[in-house]
């Protein structure tokens, strides 16, 4: 059975995308926690160590970490290994700044949304829309 629901998020960097959610089960700093060339989670002890974030709609309920994470975000965009979109649990600029710089450099930029307490789980299929910032969630 499939059904559809929607919720409203705040677009930090608007864009339209459909993809599969990957929810971070524990907070991570991209700098020191994500390989900038392969997008693999490398943080020792992280429950999703070894998972790659490229192409996913990455759900980041809690932000932590180094401000050098902007550089890792840019490197992922440059390498074509960025997530398809980011959904952040709170307003933050560290990762989006990397996306804005990618856009300035003419490299693929990705949408970034803010949604407090994002309800999505790994495997959910989401559609993010540019205007109105509606997130449609398909339960399969």
């Amino acid at each position: 059975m499939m059904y559809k629901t929607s919720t409203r998020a705040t677009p930090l960097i608007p864009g339209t995308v459909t993809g599969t959610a990957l929810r971070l089960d524990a907070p991570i700093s991209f700098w020191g926690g994500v390989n900038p060339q392969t997008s693999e989670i490398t943080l020792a002890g992280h429950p999703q160590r070894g998972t790659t974030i490229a192409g996913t709609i990455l759900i980041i309920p809690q932000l932590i970490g180094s401000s050098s994470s902007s550089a890792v975000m840019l490197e992922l965009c440059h390498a074509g290994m960025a997530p398809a979109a980011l959904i952040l649990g709170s307003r933050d600029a560290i990762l989006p700044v990397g996306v804005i710089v990618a856009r300035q450099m003419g490299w693929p930029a990705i949408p970034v949304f803010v949604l407090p307490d994002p309800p999505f789980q790994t495997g959910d299929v989401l559609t993010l829309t540019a205007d109105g910032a509606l997130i449609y969630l398909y339960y399969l």
Partner: protein
Amino acid sequence: MNLTTAERATLAGDNGKGAQMAMEIVVETARMLGADSLIEIHSGHIDGCLYHGDSGVLFCEKLASEGARVAVPATTNVGALNLLKPDQSRLSPDQRKMAYRLMMAHEKMGCTPSWTCAPYQAGARPALNRQVAWGESNAVAFVNTVLGARTNRYGDFLDIACAITGRAPYYGLHKPENRHAQLVIDINGLPASLLREDAFFPVLGALTGRLAGETVPVIEGIPTATEDQLKALCAGAASTGALALIHITGITPEAPDRATALGHIPPAETVTVTPAMIRQTRDSLSLAPDGPIDSVALGSPHFSTAECRTLLHLASGKPFRVPVYICLGRHTMTALAADGTDKALADLGVRFVTDTCVVVTPILPAEPGVMMTNSAKFAHYASGNTGHAPVFGTLKECVSSAQSGHVIRDAQVWA
């Protein structure tokens, strides 16, 4: 967003493509954070000169080639190379070239090539209440805490963009109402002898970072502290937490008393620190048991002239059996050269690391081993960044351990 005429002109490209890119980054960041205006800044400290990958180099070179120049004095944090000894970092030739290009792009944009994480030792000391845009977590915590200037934590790209535009998003710690403490950390119950130990301060910092996270704390019960002790406290706190500002009653400029530090509002929480909490935090900074060591790393943040002289005094002329790396700025090297302290330390087995530091670029022995340090920040980052297991100790313990090749403890310190 409320932008001035001048800010709009820069955003429109009237001052060149490079300045336009920088203003777009600042304005977009302000918008994303919910700030409704920008604020004029008086200085910058740029963390973005450390090489993380080619994309950041290409961006900074584009800024520089498009004519971007810093509008305010902007010191540089460490790069990935010791420019005086480029071979000291075991980077590939290609990485070394890109790391060098990144550092040179910042020079081209008019940054002051200080290459230090302790710019406040090298003369960059903004006045009380000055608005600045600084990067590097210890430098941010120091400039807010010890000098009382106002900055948020500015990281890659945003740091240089602020320096080029002379503007920062007006939010967070730039606003006086956000600088009040909400958490009281009471250390009055600790023995007075402990509070005199240099090594107590990085441990208290690490504990403070863990207790406070992103909250502004006020520490009560420190009778007196040197600048190097405050430096170590700030660096420890900014490593284990996202702290950018710590008040210390009677010591830091915005905390003449507890009520002022709290903004005359009752604290959300008070934590009373016990000797056991200090010992636990100290122990958490070591990831290897006391035993043989392979190196000693000092100077995170960069070692001061006074710390170098103390080290020389403690060594009493007895040479080191393992390499002792001292990370420091060129401003300190110059001071050490003036009276021969540099040569005396080198003769004992010290290896000086200028312009960079041993946890951001591969300088420590290639074979991962045990690294002893008196820095909570080195202890925090050593394992993840270098593969070396840290052992934390006092400077005196680091010296005697380096001379013997295995950890020697001073039982009196933590008694």
